[in-house]
């Protein structure tokens, strides 16, 4: 069993599942149309656990690598591998994806097609987290858009077609620049391999070769790659596609978009942009810090003004992911001056990736429940006093809200504390201003909680049905992880601490 290509299995089992479910969609009995995709989706959790068992946290290089020649003429390889960063994102995907499928209502249209599209999406995301050669990586990156587009367009709300269109056009627009950037890199170096490119960057060869192209090209290549990731995360102000896409997508897709797909952008920053372009990133970090700060503060303020609960949670995602970018840019701008702060900032970023996945997915699911019960309503003023008739739902949603606003004891706090601790050590004034984001987040999330759950029962909050078993089982794992990671962050930091320590001491 030790010789099994675990990572390939991780990526392709969902895809094989998608194919099987799609082909057999008419033959399958109704119940299997739901459970078969779920079973394939669970494969990531099982294989992720096997990977975890074989993973050695003290090794900071890529592990379980698989490398085969793919297109010899272009020097393209099928190259997979994982380190602590990839591992936690694979585990996150493994946790979120089955819950999404399990939490999907039974009365959904065309469950088999929905399931196979979702499996396609899941496999693509895993491919992005595991591929180490630009060519396959980019295939996974772009392929993830296709199922996401159809999931939003055909299973989403009334504004879904337009939102899906915006989402795809905007992110493809970003990816086009990314592709151009890598085409230029390939022209200069002759390789697509991330590891080789990073080594070239570390030795300074990459910069020399790009400079040899002359003109503004070195900057343009960097900027193209930056733009591709900036749209994906999204970096403020390239986030305009996000609120409509998250708001109009069906509940499960919103959970996956925010829980997993939003991590692809930050992953790109950490795995590709930072190692390949350390010097340009260092030079650009000043303005970028301001943009990240804008995402933290203005993202939170924009959320405060939303009356649509899904859009509110979407803007809170902009705010939460901007903390990750703030930390990364602070590290990039400061260099190796303060290793303790650098370690804290990067550890916080990785924790925040995982924690945001849990809490935002749970929040989207909660809003989905409200939409489901009220016939599509999700306005701040549409509900009132839900806690009276649905105390369990109120409790569950409350835990998710407090996790999202960074209450100590729950998962969100540790990551945000470490990010602030790191950013304060590197760029104190940015950390000080960013604390405003914490305040405003508390303000709008508590407004959410107060308007929906408190006060006398009103609107769609009257006789609100409490959680059923399916909903409890969907939320419970997320909630348990929120408590577990809040109290014992070692569960995660143990996986990536040596890696982050190595990053901090040998900054690219």
């Amino acid at each position, binding site marked *: 069993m030790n010789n099994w290509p675990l990572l390939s299995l991780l990526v392709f089992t969902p895809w094989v599942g998608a194919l099987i479910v799609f082909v057999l969609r008419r033959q399958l009995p109704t119940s299997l149309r739901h459970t078969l995709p779920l079973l394939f989706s669970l494969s990531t959790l099982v294989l992720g656990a096997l990977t975890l068992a074989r993973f050695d946290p003290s090794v900071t290089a890529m592990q379980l690598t698989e490398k085969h020649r793919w297109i010899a003429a272009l020097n393209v390889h099928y190259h997979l591998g994982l380190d602590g960063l990839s591992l936690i994102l694979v585990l996150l995907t493994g946790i979120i994806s089955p819950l999404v499928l399990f939490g999907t209502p039974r009365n959904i249209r065309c469950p088999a097609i929905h399931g196979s599209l979702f499996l396609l999406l899941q496999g693509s995301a895993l491919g992005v987290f595991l591929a180490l050669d630009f060519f396959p990586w980019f295939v996974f990156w772009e392929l993830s858009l296709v199922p996401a587009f159809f999931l939003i367009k055909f299973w989403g709300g009334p504004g879904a*077609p*337009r939102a899906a*269109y*915006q989402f795809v*056009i*905007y992110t493809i627009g970003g990816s086009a620049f990314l592709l151009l950037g890598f085409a230029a890199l390939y022209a200069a170096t002759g390789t697509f391999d991330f590891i080789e490119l990073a080594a070239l960057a570390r030795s300074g060869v990459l910069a020399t070769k790009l400079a040899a192209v002359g003109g*503004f090209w070195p*900057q*343009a290549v960097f*900027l193209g790659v930056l733009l591709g990731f900036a749209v994906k995360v999204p970096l403020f*102000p*390239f986030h*305009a*596609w996000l609120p409509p896409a998250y708001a109009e997508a069906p509940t499960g897709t919103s959970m996956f978009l925010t829980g997993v797909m939003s991590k692809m952008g930050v992953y790109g920053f950490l795995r590709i942009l930072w190692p390949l372009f350390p010097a*340009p990133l260092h*030079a*650009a970090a*000043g*303005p970028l810090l301001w943009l990240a700060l804008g995402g933290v503060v*203005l*993202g939170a*303020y*924009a959320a*405060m*003004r*939303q009356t649509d609960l899904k859009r509110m949670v979407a803007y809170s995602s902009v705010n939460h992911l901007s903390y990750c970018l703030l930390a990364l840019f602070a590290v990039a701008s400061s260099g190796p001056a*303060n290793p*303790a702060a650098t*370690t804290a900032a990067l550890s916080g970023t990785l924790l925040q990736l995982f924690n945001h996945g849990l809490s935002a997915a749970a929040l989207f699911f909660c809003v989905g429940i409200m939409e489901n019960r009220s016939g599509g309503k999700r306005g701040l003023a549409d509900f009132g*006093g839900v806690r*009276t008739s649905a*105390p369990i739902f109120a409790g569950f949603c409350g835990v998710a809200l*407090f996790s999202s606003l960074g*209450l*100590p004891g729950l998962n969100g*706090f540790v990551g945000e*504390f*470490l990010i*602030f*601790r790191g950013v*304060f*050590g590197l760029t104190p004034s940015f*950390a000080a201003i960013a*604390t405003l984001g*914490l*305040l*405003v987040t*508390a*303000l709008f999330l*508590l*407004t959410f909680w*107060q308007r929906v*759950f*408190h*006060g006398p029962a009103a609107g769609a909050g009257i006789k609100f049905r409490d959680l059923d078993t399916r909903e409890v089982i969907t939320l419970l794992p997320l909630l348990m992880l929120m408590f577990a990671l809040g109290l*014992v962050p*070692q569960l995660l*930091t*143990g996986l990536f*601490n040596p890696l982050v320590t190595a990053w901090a001491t040998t900054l690219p």
Partner: protein
Amino acid sequence: MNLPVQFLWLIPALPLLAAAVSALIPRHSPRLAADLAIAAMVGAFLLSCFALAGALAQPALHQVYNFSWFDLGPGSLRLGLLLDPLTGFMCVMVSFVSLLIFIFSTGYMKEDANAKQFFCYLSLFAAAMLGLLVANSLLLLFVCWELVGLASYLLIGFWFHKPAAAAAAKKAFITTRIGDLGFLIGLLWLQDAQGTLLFFDHGAGFLEPAALASLTQLLPCGLAASTAIGLLIFCGAVGKSGQFPLHVWLPDAMEGPTPVSALIHAATMVAAGVFLIARVYPLMSADQALTGLPLHALTVVAYIGAITALLGAMIAVAQNDIKRILAFSTVSQLGYMMLALGVGSWVAAIFHLLTHAFFKALLFLGAGSVIHAAHHEQDIRQLGGLSKKMRVTFITFTIGTMALVGVPLFFSGFWSKEAILHAAHGWQVSHLPFYAAVLGVVLTAFYNTRLMAETFFGKPRSHQAEDAHENGPAMTLPLVALAFFAIVLGFLGTPAFPWLQSKLVGEAEVHGESLFAGAGLMGLSIVLVALGIGFGWAWYGRHTRASAEATDPLASAAPRTFAALANRLGFDELYAATVGRLHQGVASFAAFLETYVWDGAIVFLARFSEYTGVVSRENDEQGLNAGFDVTSRKLRATGDAYSKAQSGETHGYLRTLAYGFVLLLILVILGGAL
């Protein structure tokens, strides 16, 4: 029997366990939840007593037990437990007062449908509060600090179907969080400067001499680093302890059930700010030895404390809600404690904290007893004549009032307040805080006399008051116990035998002076108290209020002043007009950017793709099959609909995006050149 420091975590763990279990049991078993909570609290109290015994055996020693929380870099992030007399005394006080209030609650909340949840939240609060006390790390303290804030939020909003309660809960959480941001920044600064947040770590903690010496270096702005960090941490205390200018949440917090007001918003949580400053006192006072600084951290603390002490007492004079009077009185008394800290006598602050916890819990529970008997009537104008109907409540409430007012010699509040006045009088920097404190003493005596006279004397002025009768033993016995301690606790710290003070500063021997050391000051304060009570009695006691509608004598004498004070000097309105409006403004600005500026980028891309679509349409029609055509027609229709909605503004959007891109390019190129 002693409790070794490494087992100190058991003290908060017991109520935490009770909270966890009662969160999971069914809703209709409030008895079980109450029994669990009380049993856990008895356990925590006994353990606290053992811990205190251990601490008193070696009062000068800070026993610590540090452990790793998680790996971080080459080392790990460490937290710790700490046992010294300060922790010991506080734990005993918190667990004992909590226990009495839990018992009182079994009577007070008997009819509430959610009583189970109530005991769950109370236990959660007790766990967080006790955790805060045993922490040997500013980070662990901060974690517990936020958790007591959560418990306070949940309990203020306990009657969540009342919009006022839900709003008050949010206001409390947000206002204290404003202070906590300062605290957080101070904490980050300290971590960055010292590399540790442990208080004591065998010489490496930040409250130990080596760290303190390095923190006294001067910053570019002329302040010492310890001053800046100390003041930032003090922001947290200002929020939590209801100090001016963040005091506005505490009176609103009275929307919670009365036992909550007694436990959290009078006896324990609001005193956490005082405890925090006392705990980091070496840091706060590190700049005292430096001369020529523009500002010392403790000076700010003293002035804020004095302002709060006076302000709270003034506003309390014109309130009519029995709980709000007590709330402003709490604000004022916390101000006295801060004043004591600021003028350098942290032991006097802790002494007053301990005595205040008992007599203020007593007063709040007494008020709860009145409210419960009078069918939730809280307006003192509607009460009256309760002295005969509720003997136990009346007598114990009187004892609590005398302790709060500082009636000489036999009541605890007298001795602890005397210690504060003494310290303020001896402060070298300025005498202004002392005068504010002295004036506050008169006002305190005055408004409490008013409260007593209106509530207990004269004739009942409403049906509810007519109807009132004494409550059962679950509610009266805690009153009696608290009344007992409201008297005797003072004798732990008299000038003749300052046992408490000696133990806190770590002296094995107790060196007393004469009981009447500083008799001049004592005489002055006795005169002031007599003056306050005399005025109060002359205005409210001699001729008690005739009816609920009659004008307040003070309101007819000075209508404008009274109205301003009754309106709490307009702080809420001021904040709504400034901070509130600023926030709304920024939010509107952010929403404006979202709608009109950032969306422009999308429109640009949509236009761009439509353009390319038109160019390649010819190819599409020839080369691709009908099925794809349907899809692309749909896509195009979407795009058309979309572009119609936005038509006319495209040029603006395009320009914005183009400018943005060029600007970004220039920035990066310039950055690269530098």
